[in-house]
């Protein structure tokens, strides 16, 4: 993305240039990387932040994100809205998210198909939901509530899961497709999550991708996973975000991009965060695949729209 691609929006008193996510690689923003990203000759396609980290009133974190937002397209990724919660959305938290979105005018806002809060408090993990009718109705209602409050469409991310529920009556892809159809939300396809869940549940990742409504995907996430074993000694993958993207996930990514064309693609690395050049190398690997599947394969695909 070059400077001239950034159009200055003057309507509505916005603070930042309008900057849609380009169909390139982006990175999850870490405080230690901000100065290097701003000074780097390599211009990363976009940056993504966890909304909750910017729900404080002010201070150095906001100053850094404002500097990033002036120079780069931004995606805001919520981790605490608890969209699958049985006790309803927390209106105070939804207000906080709305404030972050108003403050930074991101190109995209996304959240997870998961729950994380209960009466006991905030559990700080993305917990699984059963795929049944009552959960479907609840998730659709919650996404509609979020989209109504934010006055914009959000993207919903497919989860990584380690257990299943006896009560599930639908497959995950069917459930997600139905949520998107009824709520009108877009989708964030996390290919590492696909690989992790498919391995953990004995699905074929290619079948999952075949059944997934790829036409609604506006962003892709890639991350590294760690490996354990379950009670029977079978492979159990953990969505660890603490290492490079695995070769199996890169292969699936190549397949997806070949099929749907270039889509904004985030490298997530949240634990044991490396120096910026290591993260940049992962982003450049995604850029290479996006470029290789570039203009020729763009026919018949669509860009992510802000």
């Amino acid at each position, binding site marked *: 993305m070059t400077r001239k691609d950034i159009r200055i929006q003057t309507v509505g008193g916005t603070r930042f240039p309008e900057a849609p996510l380009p169909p390139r690689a982006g990175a999850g923003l870490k405080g230690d990387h901000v100065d290097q990203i701003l000074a780097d000759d390599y211009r990363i396609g976009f940056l993504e932040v966890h909304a*909750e980290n910017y729900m*404080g*009133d002010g*201070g150095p974190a906001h100053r850094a994100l404002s500097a990033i937002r002036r120079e780069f397209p931004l995606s805001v990724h919520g981790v605490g809205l608890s969209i699958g919660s049985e006790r309803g959305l927390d209106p*105070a938290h939804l207000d906080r998210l709305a404030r972050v979105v108003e403050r930074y005018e991101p190109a995209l806002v996304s959240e997870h198909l998961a729950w994380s809060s209960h009466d006991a408090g905030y559990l*700080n993990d993305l917990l699984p939901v059963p795929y049944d009718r009552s959960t479907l109705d609840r998730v659709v209602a919650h996404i509609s509530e979020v989209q109504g409050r934010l006055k914009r469409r959000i993207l919903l991310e497919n989860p990584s899961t380690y*257990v*299943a529920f006896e009560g599930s009556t639908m497959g995950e892809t069917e459930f997600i497709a139905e949520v998107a159809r009824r709520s009108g939300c877009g989708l964030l396809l996390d290919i590492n999550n696909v690989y992790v869940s498919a391995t953990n549940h004995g699905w074929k990742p290619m079948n999952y991708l075949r059944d997934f409504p790829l036409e609604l995907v506006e962003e892709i996430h890639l991350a590294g996973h760690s490996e354990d074993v379950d*009670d029977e000694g079978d492979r159990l993958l953990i969505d660890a975000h603490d290492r490079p993207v695995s070769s199996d996930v890169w292969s699936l990514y190549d397949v997806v991009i070949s099929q749907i064309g270039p889509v904004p693609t985030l490298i997530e690395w949240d634990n044991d965060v490396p120096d910026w050049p290591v993260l940049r190398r992962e982003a450049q690997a995604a850029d290479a695949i996006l470029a290789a599947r570039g203009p020729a394969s763009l026919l018949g695909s669509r860009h992510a729209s802000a």
Partner: protein
Amino acid sequence: MQAGFAASLLAPDLPVPAGVVGPRGKKAGKRFAVYRNNVAVGLAGALGDIFPVVRKLVGDGFFRAMALVYVAQEPPGSPLMFEYGQGFAAFLEDFEPVSQLLYLPDVARLERAWLDAFHAADVEPLDPGALGRVAPEALAELTFTVHPATRIIDSDFAIVSIFSASREDQDISGIRPRQAQSALVTRPGDWVEVRGLPPGASTLFKALIAGVRLGEAAGDALAAHPQFDLPAALAAMLEAGVFIRCAARAPAGSLSA
């Protein structure tokens, strides 16, 4: 479903919640344990990031075990993890294995105050020249408005020395913990600053924060601490950005920065 799931997450001796299974009828024990581990490791890790000096003082392994006890007692009330641990200092006061480390709770209070200051609202501190523009006879009548980042922690222990040395990766073995120190936490510019306050300055600043007029607050500080150096305290106050406004008779006639 979620009530049982949440309860089992926080209590490792509870069985896997009913209805939670592995694929094709497989057991879910180790699978559910992944969530238990994510929650425990995630919250303990977050607590360690908020209290790095406490973690260093007790060691990583001990801190993790201690954090797990605290996390089970007091899980976060909201998804704003940077607000977590408000009760950690009080927990440390009652946690028997660290009862010998008398300074630990106040070090935790200082670390918690540091993060509060980090996320506080952006407001320009009082212009250091503001007091110079007040007529000398009006100085005693001044009242002040505190900066949202300002925190003061009084301790019977050397918390400023311990905090500063630890965060700068210096050796703390030479610090004698049993000397009373008051910490002033402020954010005058781009970053949070921590200073030790001389005797009397803490008394003065706390009175001013409470809205007491400068003349009365200075008199009280001097009465309590005969060696109190008022000009030095005022200079430190302006340099540290403790306040954002002063007014001769609040709120009218404000001399804002």
